[in-house]
């Protein structure tokens, strides 16, 4: 264990240390920069994991081909969001929506969230994974309520209660997995280590595993935002600071989905247990269709894109539920590109809401004239999220639809219906927001375009050309997922 250049523990430990430091330091300039530096250091540590040989997993931490995709994505979006965040909170300080004291709290919580998410992704221990996801939930609850308006507190409270119920159900499922494992593996820590569980899952009591998976799917599914457990998601996205909306949509939903995937792999290792696929397919399709129709009635721009996140998490869950190399590949690609695109859209939306002093869609029009960079950035983002070529999401959705048509044509029809309905809603609203006669106030805003266009460029590049190395990697992971 001593030939590592960078030990994997650093990935959660850097943000943890930064959180402690940022909680103590005053001042906007210094802390915003430190926030960026810390996330950059975390990203570099995560990238260095790519170049190291695979290691034997310990009782707490694990780095394998599956979670390294999530970790790199997580730390990358964490870094770009911190760049966006520094210009975003600068504006919020100027207009007095945030006070310096809350800013310090905000930065500490941001780093703590990063630490918790990375720990959850690297956890080889289902108990540790649960604790990390709980901490991540708590920090986001606190950040959603940071503006302290009536609506923000309501959103935070709703998120809190639903999230708590979700993590409580997930804990019950975790306990049941332990009870199933204990007669086979023996008492103690080893019966919670994920690699041990998978290796021995064939001998577990299948009935107990089934019940456990239902609890885990409902519990972590609440955090993924799957219908009908999604109620917290739009409020939390709409009322919190926009960097948090970006991190919630782009990352935290993925982390919860990752937990579901780990347990799905556990179920697959036991031949007598139910196949989790159909459950995930049903929940995924329900989320997709529900969110697609709900998109038409949104009046708040952040809430609008929050529903689009529910829609996409539905698609991704559907893809992983279908299983098979092709659908899993499409799911992984969709997840990666959705994270990049959606956080990019929120970067644009954050500055748009600042420039127009409102989040109401009806009060925003003609952005391409008044704020060309933001307006066109948003247009490209929406084109990407709607799944149009040549941007990357077109490819993953095309793969998913064609592989589904080959295996279950009826499901594919529902899938396509959901995609088209959402497509219509996205362009209906985009037309009003981006084009037409400019309306309302237009404040100048010091926007940071770097993160937005970096994300969009990556999504475009993925649509035009996927490097063979990446394709091989994703294919390998798709086979792991089964």
């Amino acid at each position, binding site marked *: 264990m001593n030939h590592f250049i960078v030990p994997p523990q650093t990935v959660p430990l850097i943000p943890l240390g930064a959180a402690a430091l940022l909680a103590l330091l005053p001042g906007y300039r210094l802390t915003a920069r430190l926030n960026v530096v810390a996330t950059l250091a975390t990203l570099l540590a995560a990238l260095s994991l790519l170049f190291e040989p695979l290691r034997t997993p310990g009782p707490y931490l694990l780095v394998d081909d599956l979670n390294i995709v999530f970790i790199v994505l997580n730390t990358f979006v964490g870094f770009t969001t911190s760049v966006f965040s520094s210009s975003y909170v600068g504006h919020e300080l100027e207009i007095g929506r945030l006070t310096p004291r809350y800013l310090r709290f905000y930065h500490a919580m941001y780093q703590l969230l990063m630490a918790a998410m990375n720990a959850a992704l690297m956890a080889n221990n289902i108990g540790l994974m649960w604790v990390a996801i709980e901490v991540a939930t708590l920090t986001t609850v606190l950040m959603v309520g940071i503006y302290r308006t009536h609506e923000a507190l309501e959103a935070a409270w709703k998120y809190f209660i639903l999230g708590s119920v979700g993590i409580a159900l997930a804990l019950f499922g975790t306990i049941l997995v332990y009870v199933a494992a204990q007669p086979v593996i023996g008492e103690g820590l080893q019966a919670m280590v994920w690699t041990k569980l998978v290796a021995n899952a064939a001998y577990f009591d299948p009935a107990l595993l089934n019940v456990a998976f239902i609890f885990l799917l409902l519990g972590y599914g609440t955090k993924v935002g799957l219908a009908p457990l999604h109620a917290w998601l739009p409020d939390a996205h*709409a009322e919190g600071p926009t960097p948090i909306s970006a991190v919630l949509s782009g990352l935290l939903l993925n982390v919860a989905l990752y937990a579901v995937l780990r347990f799905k792999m556990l179920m697959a290792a036991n031949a007598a247990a139910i196949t989790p696929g159909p459950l995930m397919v049903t929940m995924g399709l329900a989320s997709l269709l529900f969110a697609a129709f709900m998109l038409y009635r949104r009046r708040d721009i952040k809430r609008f894109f929050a529903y689009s996140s529910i829609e996409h998490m539905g698609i991704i869950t559907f893809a992983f539920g279908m299983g098979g190399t092709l659908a899993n590949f499409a799911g992984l690609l969709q997840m990666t590109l959705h994270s990049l695109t959606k956080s990019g859209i929120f970067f644009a939306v954050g500055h748009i809401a600042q420039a127009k002093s409102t989040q109401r869609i009806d009060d925003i029009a003609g952005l391409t004239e008044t704020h060309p960079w933001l307006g066109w950035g948003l247009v490209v983002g929406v084109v990407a999220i709607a799944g149009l070529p040549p941007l990357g999401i077109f490819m993953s959705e095309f793969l998913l639809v064609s592989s589904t048509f080959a295996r279950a044509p009826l499901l594919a029809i529902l899938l396509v219906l959901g995609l088209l309905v959402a497509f219509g809603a996205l362009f209906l609203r985009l037309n009003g927001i981006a084009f037409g006669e400019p309306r309302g106030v237009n404040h100048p805003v010091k926007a940071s375009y770097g993160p937005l266009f970096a994300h969009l460029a990556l999504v475009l590049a993925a649509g035009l050309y996927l490097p063979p190395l990446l394709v091989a990697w994703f294919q390998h992971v798709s086979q792991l997922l089964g």
Partner: protein
Amino acid sequence: MPNLAFDTAHLLAGGLVLISFMLLYQDRLTSLLNVYALHALVLALSVAWQAHLQNAPHLYVTAGLALGFKAIIIPVALRRIIERLGIHREIETVVGIGPTMLAGMALVGLSMVVMLRVTAAATPIARQDLAFALAVVLLGLLMMVTRRNAVSQVVGFMSLENGLNLAATGARGMPLVVEISVAFSILIAFIVIGIFLFRIRERFDTVDIGALDQARGEHR
């Protein structure tokens, strides 16, 4: 001797389910808090008994936490909050007491049927602990959905969490139990502080459409 061990564990876990039922029909906040304190006390005894049976001294920490934090500090703090905020003393229910009790009985039946059937391989103590724990969890959920008042929702959540503690301690030799119970205590402390700081009195699905629109950010 093994009989006494089993019977005592059975008595305490069953008592927890009964007290969950008592929580369901309380119609005053103060008496609800008293019953919750009793709930936590029985949990503490149950966990301590498990610690003794399993010869696992670390579980005494969980038991102590249940006794000191959940049975004493939280009820006292919530009572002061109720007085300070002047929250009305009666509990508004969404569904009447009668139907709630019937639903509760159905849930307990369900958890017995499910858990006893799937845990045939586990030890008898773990088996009945899990079945009772699921019953307590479901009753806690039932309480959360049938109450309008934020404080009684929180009490529902805390009783649910007691059920999880029962399950975790009943699963012999489970690691991280103490850590998890500490994490949950922090969560509960946050909730209670949240109620106090933000003066949350009601759940947000009122019948007032105007309030709904405000909560959803949709001004039509």
